[in-house]
């Protein structure tokens, strides 16, 4: 059984604009799919629709099936049961995902307490374990810190720890490294790769950056103006894009990258 299936997903605004247009995809357990596109391609909306998190004023039609259960048309209560357990999401900007007035430890304790019914010492230990899993040094100190007291890379690790707290089968990551410095990005991608492998999770990785997607995903789906342009193995898409638009994306990325080669070749 697929962990995620989208059938003809269409997202419209109330004033009738179509932002995602008839998108279908399937993700098997443990599979890693990169959703790539430029701004306005609908990639982030697609990832939000998977958890029924579309902003007010947008409606989804078609079918979203997560771990066998329908998401489109589900009640808020049913959705709450699914979020975090079947699939969890990490966003681009960890500062907006974290409550600035709450210590990091308490924020992670939230889902752990609710989902696993942990309390007291057991809960505290689980929080420390969750922070250790995302390779945060000195987890006790981080647990006591407020979000503004730790670095951007550490915040994104905390957001990741929260997402992983309830052991989801699917992790959705929406531009998780875009706001980070390149060295921190490299570390986080390695961590993400390890965690997804260790836990045998499926991964839906949303990004505008082909090189980043190529590092973490097996398969890629290229989106433009709300539609799927093409899909395939990362290496095939990057090596021999079939569609004109994909070719333009790959060529642009290669053209910029080639500047680095010329320089280092000297």
């Amino acid at each position, binding site marked *: 059984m697929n962990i995620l299936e989208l059938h003809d997903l269409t997202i419209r605004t109330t004033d009738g604009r179509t932002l995602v247009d008839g998108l279908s995809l399937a993700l098997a357990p443990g599979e890693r799919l990169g959703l790539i596109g430029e*701004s306005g391609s609908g990639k982030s909306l697609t990832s939000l629709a998977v958890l029924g998190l579309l902003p007010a004023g947008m409606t989804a039609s078609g079918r979203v099936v997560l771990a066998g259960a329908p998401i489109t048309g589900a009640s808020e209560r049913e959705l709450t049961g699914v979020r975090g357990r079947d699939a969890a999401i990490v966003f681009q900007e960890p500062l907006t995902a974290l409550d600035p007035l709450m210590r990091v430890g308490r924020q992670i304790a939230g889902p752990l307490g609710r989902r696993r019914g942990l309390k007291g010492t057991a809960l505290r230990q689980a929080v420390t374990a969750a922070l250790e899993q995302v390779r945060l040094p000195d987890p006790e100190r981080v647990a006591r810190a407020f979000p503004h007291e730790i670095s951007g890379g550490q915040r994104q690790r905390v957001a990741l720890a929260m997402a992983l707290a309830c052991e989801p089968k699917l992790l959705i990551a929406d531009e998780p490294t875009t706001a980070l*410095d390149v060295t921190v990005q490299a570390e986080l*991608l390695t961590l993400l790769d390890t965690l997804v492998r260790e836990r045998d999770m499926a991964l839906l990785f949303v990004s505008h950056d082909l090189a980043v997607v190529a590092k973490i995903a097996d398969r890629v789906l290229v989106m433009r103006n709300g539609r799927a342009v093409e899909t395939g193995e990362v290496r095939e898409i990057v*090596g021999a894009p079939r569609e004109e638009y994909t070719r333009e994306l790959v060529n*642009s990325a290669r053209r910029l990258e080639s500047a680095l080669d010329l*320089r280092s070749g000297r």
Partner: protein
Amino acid sequence: MKPVPELKPVLELENASFAYRGRTDPVVADIALPVESGQSLALVGESGAGKTTLLRMLLGLARPTSGAVRFDGDELRPRDREQMTRFRRDVQCVFQDPYSSLDPRRRVGGIVAEPLRSLGIDTRRTAGPKVAAALERVGLPADAAERYPHEFSGGQRQRIAIARATVCEPRVLLADEPVSALDVTTRVKVVELLGELKREHGLTLVMVSHDLSVVASLCERTAVLERGRVVEQGPTAQVLGAPAHPYTARLVASVPRLPTAAGPG
């Protein structure tokens, strides 16, 4: 043809340090950085390393707590109106976000003409031909002057910002992450545009960028900052191609690369 580097740098940071008022620990310390004509300079490093502070000092927006900023060999004196007028004419800037750097209530023609008017070079009436030339230079249609910023895409807005910055034909363009808010296909085109302005109009760039491929495309020289200090500077080919400092090496190694068509990349 590249202009022969002049004896005097156009702009120079001379052992410059900057600390916020009431703080003793400087944001940047002892920066010695010349900008020579025809030798575009990139400032790279992590967030918080002090790149933007250096740029602000070079723009005269922040005064060094110690050391000096020199323009054509003379110390920059923000109260010297005659010098500041020459400085503003020769040193212009472009920022990262093309959405917040253009006044939404003004037509593009007025926005682009602004430096000409504020520097007393032209009046509204006589600015027209120069505005048209600047818009053409950045690849925008002439009727763009009559329209408003919201009618343009992100890439086009960044072109408008570049047109405004180059309308008075400056020698130096300071750019803070000029292409990082743009999609990759647009980014390539704006990088090409900046390259053209360098070649055809002798513009020297001083650019802050976290994107090393953009740096390698546009800048002859690179300075690497780590925690407020320049740890390495020199020709870009040398700094990025054969890094001498471990931090630079880590930076270069962290850049994600596309897999090569041939095999594992």
